[in-house]
């Protein structure tokens, strides 16, 4: 025997004669319908508390007041305020793209490729990284570079290595591969200078 579908069971709950006839002859469907009828009875037993008569006496007046006082709702895209906000946001984005200095948006220049002149560093101010880079230049007003330089001044390479601050496997090779010709030539020059300096 084919059983009732969900929709036919909904019909049976509403007293549809065709579904009711099936339910009368099918215990499985009858059990389903009875279970749902119990749930429906639980639902309909729950009533809404009736507000006080005073609530109803003033309801239409409150609706009228709301109609008169509340501004009509506008769709957000039709709201002039939203339109102006959108225009202002667009202008800000354009301004940011056009006027923010290029240096702020460009990636940090690779040291080897930089052509600017390094600020003079006296012998007393020299740090290990200065020694490694020799007279390599950096932007004079670059705070980030200054921070790296000051941190590097106290750098203990062995301690750093023990702390796990080491290049990831293949990082050096990857960096070398990514250098352009000019950078690669500069790297060779730096290595040669360092070898010569240490007498290796």
């Amino acid at each position, binding site marked *: 025997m084919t059983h009732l579908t969900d*929709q036919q069971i*909904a019909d049976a*709950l509403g007293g549809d004669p065709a579904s009711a006839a099936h339910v009368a002859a099918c215990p499985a469907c009858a059990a389903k319908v009875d279970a749902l009828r*119990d749930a429906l009875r639980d*639902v309909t037993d729950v009533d809404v508390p009736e507000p006080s008569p005073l*609530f*109803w006496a003033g309801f*239409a007046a409150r609706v*009228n007041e*709301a109609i008169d006082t509340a501004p009509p709702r506008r769709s957000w895209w039709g709201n002039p305020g939203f339109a102006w906000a959108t225009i202002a946001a667009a202008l800000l984005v354009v301004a940011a793209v056009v006027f923010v200095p290029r240096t702020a948006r460009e990636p940090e220049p690779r040291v080897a490729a930089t052509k600017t002149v390094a600020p003079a560093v006296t012998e007393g101010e020299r740090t290990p990284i200065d020694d490694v880079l020799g007279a390599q230049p950096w932007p004079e007003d670059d705070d980030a570079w200054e921070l790296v330089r000051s941190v590097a001044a106290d750098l203990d390479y062995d301690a750093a290595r023990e702390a796990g601050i080491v290049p990831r496997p293949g990082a050096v090779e990857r960096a070398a591969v990514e250098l352009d010709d000019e950078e690669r030539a500069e790297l060779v020059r730096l290595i040669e200078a360092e070898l010569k300096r240490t007498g290796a």
Partner: protein
Amino acid sequence: MLDTDRARADDEELVRACVDGDRRAFDVLVERHQRQVYRLCYRFVGSHEDASELAQDAFVRAYRALPKFERTSKFSTWLHRITVNVCLNRLALKRPAHQTLDDSSAIRAPGETADAAVLREERAARVRAAIAQLPKKQRATLILRAYHDLPHEEIAGILGSSVGAVKANFFHALANLKKRLTNE
């Protein structure tokens, strides 16, 4: 239109009068449907404060939308649709308030003992909580079918669903409810 005419007019005539600028005609429509709208809202949100606010909002929206009412359905169906949308929008923004026994007060029915009233109200609170956990469409279908006794076809018009979907939602709403109430 005179007050006596308004009182006798059917909804369609009142809608026409209202669109023509007779504000008092809308008052009659409000008075005629306010209980149904309030009760529908209450079924969704479970508190008097929220229900009265939502019912008011539904009538304000209906008033503003009246010129666009195409009269292809009954005014009451259209008003129900607005009300359901207002309620569903509220539910999407705000979790329903946790309902305590005091919210609906265990008022004793004639001949009912105090204990029986408390038990009945506890049962009602469990059912309300179970209904509140139903998916939105199932919940709306159940409320319109069980409490407002609307036919499947009218519910389909209100919810913008097919009649088959309404029947399926009604079935699943009851099945889910049964499961939740049994598992407690």
